[in-house]
């Protein structure tokens, strides 16, 4: 051994350790800036009235007001009812469909995943608008049909507690389904067979074995769905006032939009309560699962044959059909009709394509389409990239880095889009150097990315869980450096999931209304906002047409994507590679 060799290695070791410290420091700082710092604004905002730029003093008033106001407790109880009831329905329904789709021989199960994915295309705004036309008490299409067959007048009233519950429950079911599908696909079906051998009937097996054995997936999905219901804005906003239902997101909206001047402290105090609630939910889920490992117990996997169900399977087929009818077909039909009416919901003025012509010939409206496409593509990519990076750090690192990163990316879970947007606005106002960011598309894009992180993270987790660290270590052993391993092995292997996640995140960005509402620059109008503005100005039928155009565009993207995927898969199959499918987004 020559001294110089040794010294070289020693210097290289030092250099590596310094570079890695610097890079990690940078990583920590960026996470702090993007995820943690803006949220501290909420706490600050709770105690300080007005914008950060105004010289308002610190006050406990908003906080006290929030807790002494009866409205706060009404809001809390209404939100809680919705979360518990809708969460329970969405998750159990999603679990049932996931089980049907993954584990059984129910006819029509092959259609479930594609239909559920299509279902995700329909943003809540349009879903609600569709149902308003179908199910309003006075002249909803379904009520009119019902009257023809002799049902009592107004037998369906969508603008009511049951109506809102149905909308939210069914609305989140596709997402719950996709969250749990993977768990049902990967579970060992022998667990059910063992119960059957023990003499348990199919029903008993389902409730005592099948469901509990996917505990983490179910509670994980339940947590996410609960958070999403807490944050739900569009449906409660459009239905809640009529039905006298007040929830966190709509109340916060009222405080910052309908009170003049905006009551920030009350809004932030509500947001703080919401954050604490979500935190409690999160801790409950953690403690439920603590000390248990649900990983598959075996080395060898057993066969995955669908479970043979008796005639009962036709009941499930019927359930699939009913669900799709209620959640996809009917609202879509309503939207198609609505998009061709002169006045949304007015039949006797005839149907025409005027609204489509209006959109395509109005440069401002057609510009929203390109704006949205750009936002969705860019934001979806950014969201998936950030999710993948942070999830990777969480999966491969221990100690502080892991805890810190998972905490940071957890934050957007707890914040409704509106609060998130407000927090970012305050955050840039506080630091003069950031102020030029105000009113830029960049800021809106960043916040949209952050808002989509919970969804993208789920997908990234699923993708990385399948990636054994040994695949990377094998790369290191082969002499490849970190970056090379990351690019040539990790990225390459998660590519299919990445693409699926990108697409899904893009969809969520298209559907996001709360963030653009606060942060969109006047000349950058995403479709969700354009549609909401059309809705606000009584041009709902033009809004419906706008949605149909977006849906058509998304369908084309999916079809082209699916086609490309098929070609790719066939090409891979020729080389024999196993390819991962879009249903990957499931876990």
């Amino acid at each position, binding site marked *: 051994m020559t001294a110089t060799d040794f010294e070289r290695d020693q210097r290289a070791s030092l250099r590596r350790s310094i570079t890695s410290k610097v890079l990690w420091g940078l990583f920590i700082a960026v996470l702090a800036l993007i995820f943690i710092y803006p949220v501290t604004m909420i706490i600050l905002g709770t105690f300080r009235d007005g914008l950060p730029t105004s010289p308002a003093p610190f006050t406990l008033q908003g906080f006290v007001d929030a807790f002494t106001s009866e409205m706060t407790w009404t809001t809390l109880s209404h939100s809680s009812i919705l979360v518990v009831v809708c969460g329970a329905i969405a998750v159990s329904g999603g679990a049932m469909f996931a089980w049907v789709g993954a584990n059984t021989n129910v006819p029509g199960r092959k259609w479930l995943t594609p239909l559920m994915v299509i279902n995700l295309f329909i943003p809540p705004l349009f879903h609600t608008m569709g149902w308003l036309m179908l199910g309003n008490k006075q002249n909803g299409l379904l009520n009119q049909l019902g009257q023809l067959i002799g049902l009592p007048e107004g037998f369906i009233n969508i603008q009511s507690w049951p109506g809102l519950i149905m909308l939210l429950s069914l609305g989140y079911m596709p997402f719950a389904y996709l969250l749990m599908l993977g768990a049902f696909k990967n579970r060992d079906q022998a*667990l059910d067979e*063992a*119960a*059957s*051998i*023990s*003499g348990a009937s199919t029903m*008993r097996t389902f409730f005592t074995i099948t469901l509990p054995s996917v505990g983490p997936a179910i509670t994980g999905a339940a947590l996410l769905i609960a958070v999403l219901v807490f944050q739900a804005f569009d449906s409660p906003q459009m239905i809640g006032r009529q039905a006298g239902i007040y929830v966190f997101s709509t109340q916060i909206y009222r405080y910052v939009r309908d009170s003049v001047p905006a009551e920030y402290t009350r809004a932030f105090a509500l947001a703080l309560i919401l954050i604490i609630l979500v935190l409690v939910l999160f801790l409950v889920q953690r403690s439920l699962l603590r000390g248990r490992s649900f990983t598959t117990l*075996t080395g060898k996997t*057993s066969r995955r044959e669908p479970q043979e169900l008796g005639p009962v399977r036709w009941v499930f087929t019927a359930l699939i059909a009913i669900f799709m009818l209620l959640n996809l077909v009917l609202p879509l039909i309503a939207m198609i009709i609505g998009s061709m009416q002169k006045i949304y919901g007015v039949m006797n003025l005839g149907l025409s394509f005027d609204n489509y012509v209006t959109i395509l010939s109005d440069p401002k409206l057609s510009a929203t389409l390109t704006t949205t496409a750009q936002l969705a593509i860019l934001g979806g990519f950014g969201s998936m990239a950030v999710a993948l990076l942070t999830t990777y750090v969480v999966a491969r690192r221990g100690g502080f880095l892991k805890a810190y990163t998972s905490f940071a990316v957890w934050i957007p879970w707890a914040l409704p889009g509106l609060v998130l947007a407000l927090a970012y606005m305050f955050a840039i106002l506080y630091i003069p150097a950031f102020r030029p960011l105000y009113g830029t598309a960049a800021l809106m894009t960043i916040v949209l990315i952050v808002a989509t992180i919970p969804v993208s993270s789920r997908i990234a987790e699923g993708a990385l869980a399948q990636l054994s660290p040994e695949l990377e270590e094998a790369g290191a052993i082969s002499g490849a450096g970190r970056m090379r391993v990351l690019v040539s092995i990790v990225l390459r292997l998660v590519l299919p999931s990445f693409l699926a996640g990108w697409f899904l995140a893009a969809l969520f960005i298209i559907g996001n209304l709360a963030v653009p509402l606060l942060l969109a620059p006047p000349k950058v109008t995403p479709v969700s906002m354009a549609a909401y503005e059309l809705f606000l100005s009584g041009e709902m039928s033009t809004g419906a047409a706008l949605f149909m155009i977006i849906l058509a565009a998304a369908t084309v993207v999916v079809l082209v994507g699916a086609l490309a995927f098929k070609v790719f898969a066939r090409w891979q199959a020729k080389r024999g590679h196993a390819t991962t499918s879009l249903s990957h987004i499931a876990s």
Partner: protein
Amino acid sequence: MTEVLVSGLTKQYGGKSALHGIDLKIASGEFVTLLGPSGCGKTTTLRCLAGLERPTTGRITMADRVVVDTDKKVFVPADKRKVGMVFQSYALWPHLSVAENVAYPLKVARLGSQDRQSRVQEMLQAVGLAGYEKRPVTALSGGQQQRVALARAMAARPGIIFYDEPLSNLDSKLRYQMGQQVRALHNQFETTSVYVTHDQEEAITLSDRIIVMSEGNIVQDGAPADLYDRPKSAYVADFMGFQNILPGTVEAVNGNVADIRVDGTSLVLSGVATSAVQVGERADVAFRAAHARIDESGLTGAGRLEGVVERTTYLGSAVNLLVRADGLPLRVRVETSDLAPEQIPAAGDTLRLAVNPARAVVLSHKEAAVDGYLTTMTDAIVSPR
């Protein structure tokens, strides 16, 4: 307590047959093992018996009850058959504790809580897991999980228990212990057991009877010693660990002993014919590595040969030799306890060997039920023990 009768059992997946008409009779209290290579249909047979799979055609009766009769459209599903099963993957329920796992079948059978508890205790005692009741099953080692699976399968005292490669995930020490436990519990509770494995040692050690399967058919069926000593086909011989299987032609028959000239050589080996053979007929002669001995007698003739050691592998108590005799590679195993260290043959040594004609077998090609098997067998030339 449970006799099983199977007749004409077939199972097709898509258009492909996995079972080609199995006929089988399992006596009450018998311990029967299905043995065969991967993909031969062992699991399928077991699952048809357990009711987890719907046979394409066939009839199965269990303790005088018809559980499957495809002609009469009878199919009793698994939960109505009162059977037990140990899954290869254990299939323990991760959300339940050890005691809850074992108690589940008892709960389903509506056993009183008092009885249930004492039965769970008894079963855990039997598998040596008393004191583990409260543990989540995920916090157990592989062997312990295996034992819980066993206790669960037996808890409701089913008349018949199915085991699907229950030990294949264990290391050899644990495998042996657990095998013994399975057999002990079988004896104690007088159940009927149907056991699937692809490990011949396990099959021999545990079973009353072994059924060797190949591509959806039963190729031989008999007591372990029978199969071990007197395989009827090259297929079974290979499976039973005959390391040397040499094709040739019958030169002479004396009673049940036949002499075979090995193809392409001048070697003549004698062995017991496991079915009638005639002079001039094609047949294989097969013998175990341990049934050739170093022969200092200087005699020549059938069963004696000379060869050069090509490779010596030290195994502890024995050495494995690869000997080339008349161009033919032969596997020979010599116990070192018989030899001084300097006597251990080394590569390059010339050895004279004698094959024990009472232990070698002559296998008529007529019994080679599986076409084309011989051609693929070259892959299996060397076997570990």
